[in-house]
Each structure stands twice: as structure tokens, then as C-alpha cells.
């Protein structure tokens, strides 16, 4: 399946095929003729042929899950990530606390302090994944694209506390070059610069 098809969420009529159904038979003679017609129509053999053809074609659709995985959509909302600035490697998070405020299940907590450069520095940042409903508000509200949703949906762990402290979510410094700009939930829509209009000053 191509990604375009995968992302198309518009439910329309394009996938439905209208059937040309007859009315069920009413009198006994019609029932009898229907039975005879169906008996000699060979529909059972059509069924046999179809499954046999599929077996010979051997077009297997199984995904052997732990070894191979299906692609997930870029807007998928899995476990969060904290991103860094691409050039300098500083943390993007400015400690504004909007995510903490908007979180409807109240699962984000952060601690901040003023560092030596008089900038706000985030000392602690944790998301309680036991409570998180992955609504994506935090990623949407973040002005710096710092907290985003990642694609890591395999959450099995020995302890519930895993994945949720700042060190787990933050891009490690040595992997900074692998950090990709997040195209998913809360990201700026491509081409949105063109949509920005000047503030009308005619009032």
C-alpha cells in the first residue's frame, strides 16, 4: 500500500460497488428453478478456482511482525520526543509550560530554572504515559516544535516509568545529525508561508 492511499482518510463512495441483486423467489416454481440454476451454475467451482489461483500465485500478504513492520503515517501519535536545535544542539524547549497547561489528562510535569545566561532551562520534564491519552495537544501547542510525537509504538517495558523522563525523550547529542524535522502532528504545514497575510492596518 502506498503512503498516499494510507493517508487518505476521506470516506467516500469510491470503494463501494453497487450489486445488481435479484428479488428472492416467491412461488415454489421460482424457488425450484433457482435451486436448479444455482446447482448447475458451478459457483462452487468458481470458489474453488479462486482459492487455488491465490495459492498458486503465492502472493503472500503476511507481515512477519517483529522482523518486518508496516510503515506508519507521519501524523501517527506515539511516544513523545523532545527535539534539539539542528545547528547548535541546544534544547528547543524554552520552558514556557504551555504543554503542561494544555494537557487534558494532566500528565506532563516540568521544572525550570534560570540558568547563568538568564535563559530558562528545563531541568525536569516527564510525561506519565499511564495517563497520557496521546491527544497531541502538547505537540500542537508547542511554539518551538520541541515536544513532538514520535513513531515509537512498541511500549513494552519492564517498568512503567520507562520512556517518560526527559533523558529518554530528548534527542541525545551524538545522534543530533540523525534528528529529522518532525513532519507530523503540530508541524507547520508545507507551503504555509504563502498563506500568511499582512495584518490589515486599515482599522
Amino acid at each position, binding site marked *: 500500500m502506498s503512503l498516499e492511499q494510507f493517508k487518505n482518510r476521506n470516506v467516500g463512495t469510491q470503494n463501494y460497488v453497487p450489486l445488481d441483486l435479484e428479488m428472492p423467489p416467491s412461488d415454489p416454481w421460482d424457488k425450484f428453478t433457482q435451486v436448479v440454476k444455482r446447482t448447475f451454475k458451478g459457483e*462452487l467451482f468458481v*470458489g*474453488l478456482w*479462486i*482459492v*487455488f489461483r*491465490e*495459492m498458486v500465485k*503465492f*502472493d*503472500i*500478504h*503476511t507481515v*512477519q511482525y517483529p522482523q518486518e513492520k508496516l510503515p506508519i503515517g507521519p501524523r501517527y501519535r506515539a511516544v513523545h520526543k523532545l527535539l534539539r536545535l539542528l545547528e547548535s544542539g541546544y534544547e528547543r524547549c524554552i520552558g514556557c509550560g504551555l504543554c503542561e497547561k494544555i494537557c487534558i489528562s494532566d500528565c506532563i510535569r516540568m521544572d525550570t530554572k534560570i540558568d547563568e545566561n538568564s535563559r530558562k532551562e528545563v531541568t525536569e520534564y516527564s510525561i506519565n504515559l499511564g495517563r497520557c491519552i496521546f491527544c497531541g495537544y502538547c505537540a500542537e501547542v508547542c511554539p518551538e516544535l520541541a515536544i513532538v510525537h514520535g513513531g515509537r509504538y512498541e511500549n513494552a517495558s519492564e517498568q512503567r516509568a520507562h520512556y517518560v523522563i526527559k533523558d529518554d525523550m530528548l534527542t541525545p547529542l551524538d545522534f543530533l545529525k540523525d534528528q529529522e524535522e518532525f513532519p507530523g502532528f503540530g508541524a507547520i504545514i508545507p507551503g504555509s508561508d504563502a498563506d500568511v497575510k499582512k495584518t490589515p492596518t486599515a482599522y
Partner: protein
Amino acid sequence: MQEAPIIIETVIKAVAIVLVFSAIAGFTTYIERKILAFMQRRLGPMNVGPYGILQIAADGIKLFTKEDIIPSKAVRAVFMIAPIITAATAFIAMAAIPFLPTFEIFGYTVHPIVSDVNVGILFVLGVMATGMYGPLLAGMSSANKWSLLGGARTVIQLLSFEVVTGLSILSPLMMVGSLSLIDINNYQVGGITNWLIWQQPVAFVLFLIAAFAEVNRTPFDLLEHEAEIVSGYATEYSGMRWGMFFIGEYANMITVAFLVSIVFLGGFGDGGLLGGLAVVGKAMFFIFFFLWTRAAWPHIRPDQLMWFTWKVLMPVAIINIVITGFVMMF
């Protein structure tokens, strides 16, 4: 003292048949899962051993070590005996079937049939019909309504189709004039054109349909229809007792496959090596056909089954017998 070698030979053959066919029955479960999977564009078991072949061993270990639960309200003795009836009758039925032509090994002539009784096919069909008591007793003794429904369906299905089996096999038997499967086989010696299927195509189709019902395969597997009655008569069974029902079912499948190949498709012909391979190949085709239909066809309802048996198959079988009789008379 003259009879001792015969007894020893018979015991060896019986043990060999039980061992070989329970192994084949186990292997058939793997084949079934694989073929069904391929027909549904899946892979089937893949993780235990290469291509999942050791899945049989895993299933066997699981079945043997699983707890054997007997419900407290069940009728204990009957509940425990029922699966043994199914498995035993399935293997007893094999006693009168010549699986391979006679061959010589180390200068000793082996007849690969436990006992060539002169009512061979009657014996096979009779014992397989007795196998009905397995599901029936299991269903009645389990103290479970799904089991009871499964048991009731067993009776209506097998009793109805016994009639069709008997009547459809009658016309080829009239032509052969013997009930022994070896005689039936020898009647068809001499190439494909001598097979009974060309002279009795209607009887072949009827017998094949009835065979599906006898071994409870898909169009007629009302006994353990998951969507309707959980698991039918086997609902309360677990562990090896449940496994015995399954071995019985698959052994019945093999029996019926050999029966159809011998009665209608010429069996092993004149009895060379090629004939031996041919009969095994034919039987394998029918086992494949059983799995094939399971992938392709839907179940039918009990009332449709009764309608189909008594209003369609039985009249057709009787007309077939009458026509055969007239053709033989004039």
C-alpha cells in the same frame, strides 16, 4: 501352532497402521494449516522450526501436557470414553482397507491389509458409522448446552448421510458383485478407462458429498461450528482427550480418501510399484480436496443439510440404483 505367524503378522500390521496413520494425521494438521494459509494469502505457522514444521511437535507437547479437565457435572465415565470411541473406530475402520498393493520384502510377501474380510466395505462403513457414538456421547455427557447441540447435530447429520453413503455405494457394488475392497480394486484393473467413476459418475459425486459429511468436513461441519455452537461436542474437552477427537477426525479423512480412490478411481490397479504410488497420490489428492473446500466453501445450516440429504441426494441415489439395475438387466 500354524496360526502363530499370522497372529504375529496381524499384530505388527495393526501396530504399524496405528503408528503410521496417527503420525500422518498429525502431519495433516500442519498441512491443513499451511494450505489454508496459502489459500488465504497468509504464511501459516512459520516460527517453530524451518517453515514451522516443528509446530506439530509443539502442538503434540501442548496436548499431552495440558490439564485434562472433566467438568464436575459431566457424566464421568461416558465423558472419558467418548473420545476413545472416536479415535478407536477411526483406526478400526482402516483394518479392511488395502492401502498398498501386495509387495515382497526380504522374500516375504506382505499384504498391506490387516484382514481381507469378504464384507470389507461394509465393515469400513459400519465401523465409521459407529464412530458417531463418540461425538454423540461426548455431547450428551458434557453437561453443556453447546455440546448437547453438537451431539444432536451429529445424529441428524450422520444418520442422514449414512443413507446416502449406503445407497450411493450400492450401484458400483452391484456392478462388481463383491464387498471386498480388493475385489473392487481388481474389477478396475486395466487403465483409466476401466475406473468405476466413468460408469458411475453420479454415485461418485454422491459418495464424495456423503464422505464430506461422514468426516465432518467443511460444507457439513455442523458438529463443531464455531460461529454457532462454540466448539460443538468438543466444547468441554481439553488436552489429550480433545486431541483424540482430532486424530480420529483426520484418520477418518485418510480412510475416506483411500476408500474413494479404491472404489471409484481404480485403487492400485494391477498392483505394481506404480500402482502403489498411484493409490497414495489419489488419496493425497482427496485429502487436499478436503482442505481445499474448507478454504473455499461456506457451511450450510442444519435444515439445509436435511433438505439437501432427503430431498435431493437420496432420490438421486435411488434413481441411480434403479437405472444401474435396468442397465445391468438388459
